[in-house]
């Protein structure tokens, strides 16, 4: 499909500028969090910049292809995703006890990240095809197939194990279902069912360390040197930042390694410690703008397909942001979930850009273009 030059006039600058602003903050913090007092910067921020380049490039590729075209191939992409997840399970590299990484030459890919955009496309297509506008709310009869679509990658990802990424997939599904509308009766039944399934999940699905993390959340104080350590050190880091922060390169909690995973999952704590509440407001504000912007894209999209894609992206970003920050400030249990655009890590960053690409895609094509008679 030829690229219509008129699309450029509708380019979504809002998403691009907001995401670039956030990633600039991320690069600065990575530079600060990973540079050693004696050995200087670690170079991680440069690597992240390279990943940003890769991310932007893939974002523009996604941008150029009409999302309708993308959705037409959604099931092909879905098939490819399942294959890659199986390959990872069979041949993947084990890091920290999880088999998540696919080694492609010098690149280590976390293919589970790809599941997020692919599932957004697949679910958007499925729901658009099966529940056209104006139809009655979804009932339990409409749910088995979407559940299956999510269930396959979910199980493969849980197997790795990477429960938190798998949960994000479920959140995407829920968001879409709720937006389309669910019959009141079905909603109640589902809520009751999941409530009764909780004890089962507790004993069967959750692993020992996950259960302990949940318990620690309820009462982190008694075991500050054991399981509660990470959560407690993160809270100390954030709290000690105060209103204005300790200054860049001056965070003691992060730079003296009291803070675990400071450049990945706990980058928010670094921000809070070094730039203080002011920096937190800035970041949360930027994220908020990005999500509201995404919401308007969904609200004003050309068709239901675009609206669902945008909703999926916004839901995915929102839940990751909420859970990640919530975990560092002790609102939710410690889960291995990166902060979009902020945490160090190529796969996550490229995936986020892919999803933002989808968002911009929808935004750019919200206008109907006249078709010249051929």
């Amino acid at each position, binding site marked *: 499909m030829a690229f219509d030059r008129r699309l450029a006039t509708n380019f979504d600058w809002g998403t691009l500028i907001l995401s670039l602003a956030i990633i600039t903050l991320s690069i600065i913090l990575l530079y600060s969090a990973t540079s050693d007092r004696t050995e200087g910067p670690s170079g991680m921020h440069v690597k992240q910049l390279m990943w940003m380049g890769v991310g932007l490039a893939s974002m523009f590729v996604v941008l150029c292809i009409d999302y309708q075209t993308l959705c037409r191939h959604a099931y092909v992409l879905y098939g490819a995703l399942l294959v890659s997840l199986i390959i990872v399970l069979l041949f993947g590299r084990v890091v920290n006890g999880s088999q998540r990484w696919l080694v492609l030459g010098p690149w280590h890919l976390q293919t589970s990240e790809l599941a997020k955009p692919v599932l957004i496309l697949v679910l958007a297509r499925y729901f658009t095809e099966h529940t056209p506008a104006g139809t009655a709310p979804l009932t339990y009869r409409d749910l088995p197939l979407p559940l299956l679509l999510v269930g396959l990658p979910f199980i493969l990802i849980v197997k790795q194990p990477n429960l938190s990424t798998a949960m994000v997939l479920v959140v995407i599904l829920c968001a879409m279902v709720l937006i389309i509308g669910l019959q009141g009766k079905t909603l109640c039944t589902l809520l009751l069912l999941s409530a009764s399934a909780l004890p089962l999940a507790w004993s069967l699905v959750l692993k020992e360390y996950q259960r302990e993390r949940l318990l620690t959340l309820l009462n982190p104080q008694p075991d500050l040197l054991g399981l509660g350590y990470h959560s407690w050190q993160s809270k100390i880091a954030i709290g000690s930042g105060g209103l204005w922060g300790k200054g860049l390169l001056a965070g003691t909690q992060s730079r003296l390694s009291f803070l675990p995973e400071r450049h990945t999952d706990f980058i928010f704590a670094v921000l809070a410690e070094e730039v203080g509440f002011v920096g937190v407001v800035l970041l*949360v504000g930027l994220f908020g703008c990005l999500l509201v912007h995404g919401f308007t894209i969904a609200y004003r999209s050309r068709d239901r397909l675009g609206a669902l894609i945008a909703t999926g992206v916004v839901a995915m970003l929102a839940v990751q942001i909420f859970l990640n920050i919530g975990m560092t400030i002790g609102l939710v249990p410690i889960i291995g979930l990166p902060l979009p655009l902020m945490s160090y890590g190529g796969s996550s960053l490229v995936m986020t850009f892919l999803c933002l690409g989808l968002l911009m895609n929808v935004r750019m094509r919200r206008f109907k273009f006249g078709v010249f008679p051929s």
Partner: protein
Amino acid sequence: MARYSSLGAPGVHDDEVLYIQRPLPPADEGFRRRLWGFIITVLIGFCLLLGRTWQLQVMQGDYFLRLSEQNRLRSLRTKSLRGKILDRHGYVLADNRVAYTLMAIPADLPPNDQLLPLLRTLNIDLDPEMLRPRRRLAALKPVPIQRDFPRDQVAYFAEHRMDFPGMFVEAEPLRTYPYGTLAAHLLGYLGEISELQLQHSKDLGYYLGDLVGQAGLEQVSEPVLRGQPGVRQVEVDALGRETQVIAARPATPGMDLVLTLDLQLQQLAEQLLEEHRGSIVAIDPRNGQILALASKPAFDPNAFIPRLAPAMWRALSTDPHHPLHNRATQGQYPPGSVFKIVTALAALAEGVITPQSTVCCPGHYDYGGRTFHDWRPSGHGCIQLRQALTQSCDVYFYHLGQLLGIDRLAHHANALGLGQPTGFTVGLEKSGLIPSSQWKRQALGQPWYAGETISVAIGQGYTTVTPLQVANMLATVANGGTLYKPSIVLRQETLHDPAPPDTPPTVLHQLRVPPQHIAAVQQGLWSVVNDPRGTGKQAHHDQIAIAGKTGTAQAVPLAERSRKEPLPEQYRDHAWFAAYAPFEAPRIAIVVMIEHAGKHGGDFAGYAKTLIEAYLRQSYPVAAMPLHTTKFTR
């Protein structure tokens, strides 16, 4: 091309207009409403995040700032270098050597299941619970895991440092005693501070695992030897590694103790005692300074550093000969004939005899229907005081005892420092026993029988003394009647004050006995060594005028002895020989005491002669070579 149903009305293609906006049709109002609900939910979530962060950062910011500073800052103590102990000529008796100690900050240690294999790789078998302090704050104070960490392990540890979080190696001076067992009872030893000691010395900055003096001078002079520990405030990372020093106050090293001891005299004394159990005490009669204080068998204080092996402790504490026991100050023995010096002085002072009074000795003394024998069955004939001392005539002193009565005798014995601690500060000192009628009433509830005085007069019966008391008593007689407090520390040297004046002697008591009476006793003591009939003639020296007194003390009453020959060891007599020299201006008083020797005191007079000669001429048959010389320099 599949056409997806759009939310808008069916597409109306308008060729004139390039593009038109196609917002969602009003038909799907519910979709929009839910979208609103969705974004509002998200924003509420964000407000929750901001609210919580506000609470942590702004409302509790100061609290968490304090916590982060606590995380980051550690006050580490720098130990002070323990002072050395030297003899009066500067030979080092207790020194410091370089040793490596594996330390841990309990708070930074990994959990036990990870710690145990880590310790195993270092060949340390230890219950990790031992490293967990009971109080939470104490978890930040470093504790030693293993002292005297072998050098090859130190090298391994240094290479793999990152694998051992919370642990570090510290170069630490450890105590060493270059002469091994020499003067072990005097020097004492170090041991890890006990919980109880820790409680009692709260403000002194001791940590669990510190080595402190647990016996001897090391214990008594702990505050002096230890010095003042310094403090370093450092910034550490989460693994407890120091990243920078923020403030520091250096430690003040402990003072060096210069003893009154003469190393070579001590060495010679211990060599003479090597075959025996017993003690030798040498004292300067002019000031009460201890020149030698030997007790055998002894122990090697090096075995206590850094920690005494349990098997070693069992061996030491169950040894029937009690090597940890300092016989010179804690051994209480009947003095035997050495006590006749006291009886003679008492009799002269009380005026019951003059030096010229004559007593005839038929070889036995009858009193109250009981016969007391002289050691020589044929008797000593009619003799005066001088010959009575020279030949150690028992009957003469039985007679004096009878004339004096127990209480007057006891009074003078006490005046000479017997029956009470001498005031020597190192280690627990026993007081011995000088019986009196009052003592017997109180202790046994019985009246004193005059016949009992007869035994006491020759240093038997209830009477017991320590070798140090006898040495001090003899020194008092030798110097003409001044009882000094025995002293061991000559001076305390510091870097700032390398040559302070010597500690002045302490006079405990001045004898109220006319000088001519003391002289009469001194004459008798001279004859003991220099008269051909003297019991101590083995101590006779051609150039040096030595005076002395022998003693052969029954360890158990005669009646309890079996008739068997040879006597079992525990029934054999104790041998005493006390001497001083030079006779005219005494500079050394010496007591040789051999437990259950089975020989006469006179048989050991040669020991005293050897020691006196070596000391007065300062020429010793052995060189003062320490066992090893690794030093920890300041």
